[in-house]
């Protein structure tokens, strides 16, 4: 297939167009009513193309995409599970898609009921009292949750608590969100298996600690077995526990963060609840809290009244609004469709299947790839590169070679605990056959690395772009068509 690499501006020819507007029947003269300083002096530089050119252009671009719909996507820490098409069908229902956020709640009862039901379903899966669905994505949820944590201490007059403890293996968004929330980050060390070192944690716990942020399972995919002890210590010191829902998938319907002692959490609907992830998204990062924190959840909230109808409420105790209206409502509809499709029993199958799939790959490859942490993992695991590194083939080389066989690369060089990290998460939605195919290719690449290392180092050999200049791209980014044209 010929590589398509055009930009729509390159197709533009003066005067060409793909539309016909009817004659102006109303004689309106909107432009003359606008203030002069709001009017353009020169016409906007827009592409002038025919309808067929537009269709071909975007169809060709879409064919360049790699997604879960085209192939296996074992990107660790991202939970790239299949997005069932029924979700899209539900979210596109005109009865919902056509709603206006400012219309009278009496005429939008169905949407409010959906919001109410979804937040209740999440609360019951999480073991917490109430969720807000308003945050737009995971990191936004983290920020919202940390604002709740901060506001909780301030509302009690305890203004000394400014520190948030974050494990050194945490996802980068954790310390970043804490900084944005105006809190100070303190790192707690991990043991070699990636678990929090309780002995290292103890001396950090004083009356300046607002709380701790954790994932469970941790970044290496291992369950934090000392979580109850950690929760006890943090609570005794007056701090709160924040659960980053990035790794919730293996626990879904089996273990509840609230039961482990967490006070606040966010969920990535675009990971655990099968809504689209990545560039297409958008995301959604609902935040749940235990009963002593519900009054702080952001405005607006959906409440169910005694007569069974639903209303929109705002409260002065809340920490304010963190989004326009109710966040990404379409994403909530998809997550709700997912929960109802699986049902109470189906949702309990998600975690065990995700865990089984990850362990199946791990055990099938551990003779050829270095496994730094022994024992059963949860939904994902980390290899520290090839077992035999003597030919100089790196994790980056292996990742690029996988592209030649039609697989998306795993997450590489994260976590930083190891030099050659390769983080693999298959999710529960892959078949045994797909997992076997991936295992065969990984074994083949390891063999090539020993026998024909130059091929692996030169990979990918079949993709339109093989070795982009990453340093050049980071140092001299060309981000607009004009910059490219003038370069």
């Amino acid at each position, binding site marked *: 297939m010929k590589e398509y690499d055009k930009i729509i501006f390159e197709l533009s020819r003066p005067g060409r167009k793909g539309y016909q507007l009817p004659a102006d029947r109303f004689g309106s003269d909107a432009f003359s009513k606008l203030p002069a300083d709001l009017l353009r002096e020169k016409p906007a530089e827009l592409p002038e193309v025919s309808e067929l050119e537009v269709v071909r252009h975007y169809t060709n671009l879409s064919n360049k995409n790699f997604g879960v719909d085209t192939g296996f996507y074992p990107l660790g820490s991202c939970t790239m599970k299949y997005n069932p098409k029924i979700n899209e069908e539900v979210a596109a229902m005109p009865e919902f898609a056509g709603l206006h956020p400012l219309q009278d709640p009496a005429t939008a009862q169905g949407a409010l009921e959906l919001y109410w039901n979804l937040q209740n379903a999440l609360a019951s899966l999480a073991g917490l009292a109430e969720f807000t669905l308003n945050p737009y994505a995971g990191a936004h949820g983290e920020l919202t949750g940390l604002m709740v944590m901060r506001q909780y201490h301030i509302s009690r007059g305890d203004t000394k608590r400014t520190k948030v403890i974050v494990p050194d293996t945490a996802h980068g968004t954790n310390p970043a969100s804490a900084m944005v929330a105006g809190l100070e980050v303190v790192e707690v060390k991990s043991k070699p298996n990636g678990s929090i070192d309780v002995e290292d944690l103890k001396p950090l716990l004083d009356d300046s600690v607002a709380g701790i942020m954790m994932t469970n399972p941790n970044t290496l995919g291992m369950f934090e077995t000392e979580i109850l002890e950690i929760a006890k210590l943090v609570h005794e010191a007056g701090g709160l526990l924040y659960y980053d829902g990035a790794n919730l998938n293996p626990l879904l319907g089996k273990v509840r963060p609230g039961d482990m002692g967490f006070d606040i959490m966010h969920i990535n609907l675009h990971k655990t609840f099968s809504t689209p992830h990545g560039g297409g998204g958008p995301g959604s990062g609902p935040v749940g809290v235990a009963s002593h924190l519900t009054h702080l959840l952001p405005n607006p909230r959906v409440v169910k009244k005694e007569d069974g109808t639903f209303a929109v409420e705002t409260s002065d105790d809340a920490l304010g609004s963190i989004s326009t209206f109710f966040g990404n409502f379409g994403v909530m509809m998809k997550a709700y469709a997912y929960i109802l499709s699986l049902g109470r029993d189906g949702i309990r199958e998600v975690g065990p299947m995700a865990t089984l799939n990850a362990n199946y790959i791990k055990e099938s490859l551990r003779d050829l790839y270095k496994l730094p942490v022994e024992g059963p993992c949860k939904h994902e695991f980390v290899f520290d590169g090839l077992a035999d590194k003597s030919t100089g083939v790196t994790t980056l080389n292996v990742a690029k070679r996988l592209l030649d066989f039609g697989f998306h690369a795993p997450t590489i060089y994260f976590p930083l605990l190891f030099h050659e990290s390769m983080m693999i998460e298959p999710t529960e939605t892959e078949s045994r056959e797909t997992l076997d195919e991936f295992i065969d290719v990984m074994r083949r690449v390891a063999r090539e690395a020993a026998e024909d290392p130059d091929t692996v180092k030169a990979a990918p050999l079949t993709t339109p772009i093989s070795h982009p200049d*990453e*340093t050049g791209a*980071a140092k001299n980014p060309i981000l607009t068509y004009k910059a490219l044209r003038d370069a």
Partner: protein
Amino acid sequence: MSILKEDLRYAESHEWVKIEGDIATVGITDYAQHALGDIVYVDMPEVGDEVTAGEEFGAVESVKAASDLISPVSGEVVEINEDLEDAPEKINADAYGAWIMKVKVADAGEVDALLDAAAYAKLCENE
């Protein structure tokens, strides 16, 4: 195998120090630049800043990761390597030539606590 220099002292966080009088020249080791990969940006302190041994004084970003720079000594920054602003890749080419900052050392005892080349080589072997 990464390059080591016998006349330098090393921190466990992979910075090197060269002492001339009371001035310490600080950079990152060849082992560190190799582990980071192609370096695209160095966040340096300003002349006149006070740095503290064991604490962050800047950061280095590569295409793979961003990593804090930890000062091996305490004192006042008297000079920074401005070449690195436009050409951070010099650290990849010559980690011991492309120094990052010079510090007027407040406590010479801190330097004695740093590793010598043999001890640092052993540390890297075990990483």
